[in-house]
């Protein structure tokens, strides 16, 4: 019998997240996916960095590690290398993983270590009050981009693909069924797998950019998500304001800890 409560630290609730935030939807999808995979709680290690997304680790009844800003993947790498039988899941955000922690993100993908990374992309620094992030669309406002951002954005999934990750997918909190399916596949993948999840921040991003409340932002996500297939038919200009969702990469590749074990075994 599946029960959310079995996986939650209910005494730590209410959640820190604002009304309208999508992070709670990801939490539920994640729990369902972990359950589907049949992981035992003792063997799951959930590692997070700093930011709104990263507070998730406090609410789940696993071995949980809330690290420093940007470094979650490095701590997770140490855990996985030391104890490869553990299921190591990283929970991080756009600022945490691709700004301050960008180097670790691409190197973990290149190395192909068996971690599952859930990357909450809310396009803003929410925890610190709405500063511009590497995924804040150009022209959109933030406290540190009061006239609209003058910069280009990172394509977070694209970054992982280019760095060699064997599983990369993008979904939205407006489509939790799809999100859960992708997380499920990512957990099954032996290798570095990324699920980028678009999640609205009505408090620090939506309000400043007049995008409405959480529900309005969810509606926007729903109306503007296009599958990879449909995206092929659209021009770059038409895609500019869209969210392309789907599984971009799903291949098999040698995983670094498994390869290292071969070295250990040879030396025996």
């Amino acid at each position: 019998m599946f029960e959310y409560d079995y996986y939650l630290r209910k005494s730590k609730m209410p959640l820190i997240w604002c009304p309208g935030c999508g992070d709670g939807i990801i939490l539920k999808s994640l729990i369902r996916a972990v359950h589907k995979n049949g992981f035992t709680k003792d063997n799951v290690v959930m590692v997070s960095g700093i930011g709104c997304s990263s507070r998730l680790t406090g609410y789940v009844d696993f071995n949980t590690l809330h690290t420093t800003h940007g470094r979650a993947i490095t701590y997770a790498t140490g855990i996985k290398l030391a104890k490869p039988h553990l299921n190591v899941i990283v929970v991080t955000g756009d600022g945490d993983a691709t700004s301050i922690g960008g180097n670790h993100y691409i190197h973990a993908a290149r190395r192909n270590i068996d971690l599952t990374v859930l990357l909450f992309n809310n396009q803003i620094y929410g925890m610190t009050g709405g500063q511009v992030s590497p995924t804040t669309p150009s022209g959109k406002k933030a406290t540190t981009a009061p006239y609209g951002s003058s910069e280009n954005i990172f394509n977070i999934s694209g970054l992982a693909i280019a760095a060699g990750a064997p599983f990369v997918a993008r979904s939205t909190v407006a489509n939790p069924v799809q999100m859960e399916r992708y997380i499920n596949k990512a957990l099954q993948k032996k290798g570095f797998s990324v699920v980028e999840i678009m999640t609205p921040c009505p408090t620090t991003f939506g309000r400043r950019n007049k995008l409405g409340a959480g529900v309005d932002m969810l509606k926007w996500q729903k109306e503007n998500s296009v599958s990879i297939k449909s995206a092929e038919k659209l021009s770059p200009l038409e895609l500019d304001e869209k969210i392309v969702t789907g599984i971009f990469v799903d291949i098999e590749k040698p995983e670094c800890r498994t390869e290292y074990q071969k070295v250990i075994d040879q030396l025996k």
Partner: protein
Amino acid sequence: MNKISDNVKILSGNEACAHAALAVGVRFFAGYPITPSSEIAEVLANELPKYDGVFIQMEDELASIGAIIGASLTGVKAMTATSGPGFSLMQENIGFAIMAEIPCVIVNVMRGGPSTGLPTLPSQGDVMQARWGTHGDHQSIALAPFSVREVFEMTVRAFNLSEKYRTPVILLLDEIIGHVNEKVVFPSENEFEIINRPKPKDKDNYLPYDETVSDIPAMANFGTGYRYHVTGLAHDETGFPTNNGEKINQLLQRLERKIIKHTEDIVQVEEFHLSDAEIGIIAYGSAARSARHAVKLARELGLKAGMLRLKTIWPFAEKQIQDFSDKVKIWIVPELNMGQIAHEVEWAVRGKVNVVKYNKVNGEPINPHEILECIKENAHV
């Protein structure tokens, strides 16, 4: 490494450090190449897989320290090695290991700074960074060996202290100590003590930061059935973040107390001709090698010189220095920096004895004769 017999070898300080790490049970190393420390990584890259251990070269020093903290949380003894610039990059996460009480050892083979400085030349410029490099109030444990043999002993000791007190320990070598080749007699397994972190017994009532039994709480390894939360945020005994002033104060006071109360156990010094000395020298690391020779030369000239050698840099040997400050007429503090420890000595003696600094920051070692001159100059003051 040249082998004289099975347990007697000629090797460098860096090599001795790596071999001692294996002997004390280190099974995880993460690091990033940097002169003059890289031999430690190279030896462990070669050896660790033979011991069922893991070596990984990470993308930078931030990643290296993150990985060793992660590995240590699963119960594996873990270390990294670096030099000044890399040590700077590690500071934030050293603070995490202090706050979350995760044992690990960071070796810093010091070179000249600041910045890129003098990659291949010795310095002792990081002793204060070892004390105050990470932000916030905290205690620090740092050891400084002065010979290859002592590198071996102190690497073992660094892990023992780290496990015993659940805190990162910094092993300060310098370019000379890291690269000098000397004879080491490898102790056999039962010849040295190995201390492991305190283990919890009760799964059901486990409180990861419980201070009711001891200032050093029992540490459960990740993946062994104790599911708990670890954070760098101020936390209470459950491990979860708290904003309760009383709980925050309780945590920070305990972290301070667990080191301060055990200063006697942690601080080690060595006396050299000090019992009747009028001219005292306080030195550590490679500068202590020169100072020891200078003391011998001074004694040949009939000058009553002696040395108090700091084997532990932090916590500071305040009591030991004060004890001898009743006997010596002067302290000379030779260092390969601008006087970082001399200031601590001045503070420790509280004006009772004059403190003379002898400093060198040009990348050259201190010549014993330079210290001898300094002894002569101050002999009849």
